[in-house]
């Protein structure tokens, strides 16, 4: 044996078998990670549609997983759509109504508190206020001080009301990153529900009002100055009728 060792030049002490250089067994964590990463790579491409259990869009961003790995992921956000109410205030711009301006302001403030509000002012002419958010609506502007008289073109205002509701009902508004859908409309009338100045006839006014009132999610109310005006509001067909001043005499 020693002769063989001398021949091959491996004399001297017996050398231990050499181990391979740089032997660094991987940690269990990284190893697991590699397995999971490989599993993800092997999974088919999956796109989460972002809907939660209720079928509504979730707030979390949508991620698309594919075989490209984590570095290739892309994200985008969908704007959430919110259902809101539009309140249309139909107010008679006459001297009789102007006398009770403070009571009117309280009524309008109590009823207009969410969503959007639009105003239709009718006297000798019709003035329509552009739709604004209820939070910034100023009650001091409900009457047109320049046109206060005895004229009241109520039937013309009902036709204008039909146009306003047709234009806004179920429409989607974009405000910055938010989207609003006008899902409900509330029509609030204030005054005496009488007409003495319209171009349109009573039948045309009632027909226009019927088209508004017959839509789903449209409610109509009328606040008369006194109970004597109830019949006029009922002739048009406002669903809920009340009086601003309630005195039994």
């Amino acid at each position, binding site marked *: 044996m020693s002769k063989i060792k001398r021949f091959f030049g491996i004399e001297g002490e017996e050398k231990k078998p050499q181990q391979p250089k740089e032997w660094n067994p991987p940690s269990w964590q990284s190893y697991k990670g590699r397995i999971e990463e490989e599993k993800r790579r092997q999974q088919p491409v999956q796109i989460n549609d972002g809907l939660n259990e209720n079928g509504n869009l979730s707030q979390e961003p949508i991620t698309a997983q594919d075989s490209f790995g984590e570095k290739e992921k892309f994200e985008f956000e969908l704007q959430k759509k919110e259902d809101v109410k539009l309140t249309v205030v139909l107010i008679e711009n006459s001297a009789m109504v102007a006398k009770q301006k403070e009571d009117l302001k309280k009524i309008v403030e109590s009823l207009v508190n969410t969503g959007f509000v639009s105003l239709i002012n009718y006297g000798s002419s019709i003035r329509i206020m552009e739709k604004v958010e209820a939070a910034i609506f100023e009650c001091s502007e409900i009457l047109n001080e320049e046109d206060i008289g005895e004229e009241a073109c109520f039937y013309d205002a009902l036709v204008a009301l039909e146009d306003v509701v047709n234009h806004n009902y179920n429409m989607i508004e974009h405000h910055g990153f938010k989207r609003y859908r006008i899902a409900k409309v509330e029509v609030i009338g204030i005054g005496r529900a009488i007409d003495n100045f319209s171009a349109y006839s009573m039948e045309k006014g*009632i*027909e226009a*009002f*019927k088209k508004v*009132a017959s839509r789903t999610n449209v*409610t109509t109310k009328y606040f008369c100055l006194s*109970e004597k005006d*109830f*019949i006029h*509001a*009922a*002739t*048009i*067909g*406002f*669903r*809920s*009728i*009340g*009086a601003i001043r*309630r*005195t*039994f*005499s």
Partner: protein
Amino acid sequence: MIITSQGFGHFTQGINNQDFGIETPRMVLVLDGCSAGKYSEVGTRLFAQILSRKKEYDNHETFENTVKEVFEEIIGMMSRYYTDKKELENDFIMENLLFTIIACFETEDKYIVKFFGDGYIFTINKENLISYMRLAYGKCPPYYAYKYCEGTNMQNSQFKTFEFDKKIFSMVGIASDGILPIVKGEVKGADNLIIAKNALMLENAIKSQKTAFYDDVTIGMI
């Protein structure tokens, strides 16, 4: 047609239905007893029974005088059981006779509603749109019996009269203020049942959603 139902609030408190109604071919009458009155249900039924004994009690022209006669007869009949007017007022009138009186009459060309107290008138116009008119006067509504009480300013008050032309309104009805859940739209399909005058289904709808009606409700349609 008269539909009446006990309110859920009264049911839980063990209070009887304080509303009452009577009808004739040309008149419906709805009486709504005051919840604060101990025996309001007694007063409404006693009044209705005696009123229906009077001649031409469903005539809109003589109705107000007939009501006055009935009140004076009832108070006159009971006064001997009380020592003085104050006791009669506190122990009998206030506990029995505080109720709203609403009557709807039909004539050839119009509907006439006579109102003393608070409640609702509802109408259906030619476009089949229903309107609910609310007559309300706060927590202390005016009652006819206050005319016989001292310290109230109701002695000169009269019935309120509303006239509805049949050319404009196809139907007029009356109701006590317990109808509020229907006005708010909380009873699905109630409007259509009223328009169709479907008394049976309307009564079923009210009674099947009893918890929605806190107060007694009575509806009258000719």
